[in-house]
């Protein structure tokens, strides 16, 4: 028995491919059949279409559904709205996240750095739903933001912001500002960590050299630090952008009655039973992200991860 095991061991050590295949077969079958199979079947539906009279799916290859997606102004609105929000959230989280990342990378002792690292990881890993819920408490009419503005006698300021067209609304929890805040809050750690990693790699001697050569703090920041942090920002933007594109929970809980891509997919597959259109909608974030990641890769974002 032992002999058999030994010779098997020798065989498998010499034949790396055998070990490799026996390891890979299980996960590959699972992902290939359960996941990839389902995914392709679902996305493939975008080339079928719904029969207008019977409401049944017609299993015939055509571009009808894709044409429907891009020809209806309501659908185009949904696409533009979602991409615009995702872009705003990305910019917002870069602006809010940069100081933390910069401080972490360049101005802390190792101990403080570990503490800050945990402080950023904790919200990232703690419950997504609970964090969205917390903003329901914050944005409510009787909640902390309104209370804060009231105490400072600044209600007029809040009212002015809310009465601004497009971004405003009847209250914070039913407005694009509210959605922007929640999205930024939820995805912020995804932005901080890559920026921090890329800043970590900027050698201090480079900053010293810049100062020695007579650049002031401002010039050093804009000419040295920011360009070197850019791959990190782009890497972070991949997360914030794609996560915002596909989310349907936040627009459902906070926000106006206007649809976003995620909600459109949800309604079309659910109550409407229009799986082809849902699949066509799902293709949009996938295609956008493939293009985005391709550009990001060319700009060196993946070296920052």
């Amino acid at each position, binding site marked *: 028995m032992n002999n058999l*095991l*030994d010779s*098997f*061991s020798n065989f*498998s*050590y010499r034949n790396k491919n055998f070990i490799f295949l026996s*390891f890979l077969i*299980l*996960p*590959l079958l699972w*992902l290939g059949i*359960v*996941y*990839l199979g*389902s995914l392709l*079947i*679902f*996305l493939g539906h975008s080339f079928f279409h719904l029969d207008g009279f019977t409401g049944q799916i017609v299993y015939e290859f055509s571009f009808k559904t894709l044409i429907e997606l891009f020809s209806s102004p309501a659908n185009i609105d949904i696409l533009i709205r979602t991409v615009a929000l995702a872009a705003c959230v990305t910019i917002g989280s870069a602006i809010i*996240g*940069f*100081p*933390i990342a910069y*401080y*972490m990378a360049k*101005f802390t002792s190792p101990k403080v750095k*570990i503490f800050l690292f*945990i*402080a*950023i*990881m904790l919200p990232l*890993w*703690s*419950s997504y*739903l*609970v*964090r969205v*819920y*917390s903003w*329901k*408490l*914050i944005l*409510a009419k*009787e909640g*902390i933001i309104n209370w804060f503005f009231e105490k400072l006698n600044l209600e007029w300021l809040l009212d002015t912001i809310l009465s601004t067209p497009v971004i405003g609304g009847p209250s914070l929890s039913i407005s694009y500002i509210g959605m922007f805040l929640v999205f930024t*809050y939820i995805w*912020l750690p995804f932005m901080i960590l890559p920026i921090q990693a890329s800043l970590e790699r900027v050698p201090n001697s480079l900053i*010293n050299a810049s100062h020695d050569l007579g650049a002031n*703090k401002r010039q050093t920041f804009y000419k040295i630090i920011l360009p070197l942090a850019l791959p990190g920002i782009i890497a972070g933007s991949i997360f914030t952008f794609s996560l915002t594109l*596909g*989310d*349907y*929970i936040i627009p*459902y809980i906070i926000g106006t009655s206007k649809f976003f891509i*995620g909600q459109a*997919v949800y309604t079309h*597959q659910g109550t409407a039973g229009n*799986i082809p259109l849902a699949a066509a909608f*799902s293709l949009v974030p*996938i295609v956008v*992200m493939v293009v985005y990641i391709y550009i990001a890769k060319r700009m060196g974002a993946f070296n920052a991860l």
Partner: protein
Amino acid sequence: MLFRKGSINKLNQAGLGLRFGAIAGLLFLHIPLLLIILYAFTTEDKTYQFPPPGYTLKWFEIVLNRQDIWNAVSLSMQIAIISTFLAIILGTLAAGALYKTSFFGKSSITILIILPIALPGIITGISLRSTFGVLGIPFSTWTIIIGHATFCMVVVYNNVVARLRRTSPNLIQASMDLGANNLQTFFYVILPNMGTAILAGGMLAFALSFDEVIVTTFTAGQQTTLPIWMFSELIRPRQRPITNVVAIFIMFITFIPIVFASYMASKTSGSEGSIK
């Protein structure tokens, strides 16, 4: 010398604006979580009034006696444990196969492993749902588990691959040279090296599964997991104070494995240097 010292000091001193920005950002990340805790003690049960008019512990007692919540908790626990178990097996195997090999199509397989977490959850969810529908598989706890295991795999994979890359391959060679067979090498050399990474990945997978709502929505039939219960309360708040308490509970259940995982990851990264 003086000049150098001066310039380093200047470098190490964060400007006022930067400090303010960093502190503001950190507050932005953490105040919402603190508010959740505060709200669990409020006496107000109709609105989200701030500051709370009074404080009480009675909601905790009410939640303790709510059977429906306990059922949801136990269902979520079961799902998380089984999916984590599956994810550990699949993720570790994939990591073992992929970390050192290079072959045609390897990058496609790596992408395939990451895909379930990279694509929006709604796409994964609907895809699985329509497949279950076509195959006539009734929705059950097991359909939820299949969905969860698929996207939990990547967390285990990432952790184990990172550890494998930092472990010297000579260790395995040495073990075989010294006459150990496959099983012995696995149990005496590989597993002790990988153990904490697998466990850390498993912990994160558990937290991920326990908290997941999107894929669950599509792969569940009548089952109510804790996140699904929470989600329905978020859409139509009927029992605000109870939701606050459940929110704290979810926070702590996911909090413990995360802290544990990062503790294990940090504990072992030190000892690896000495192995090399």
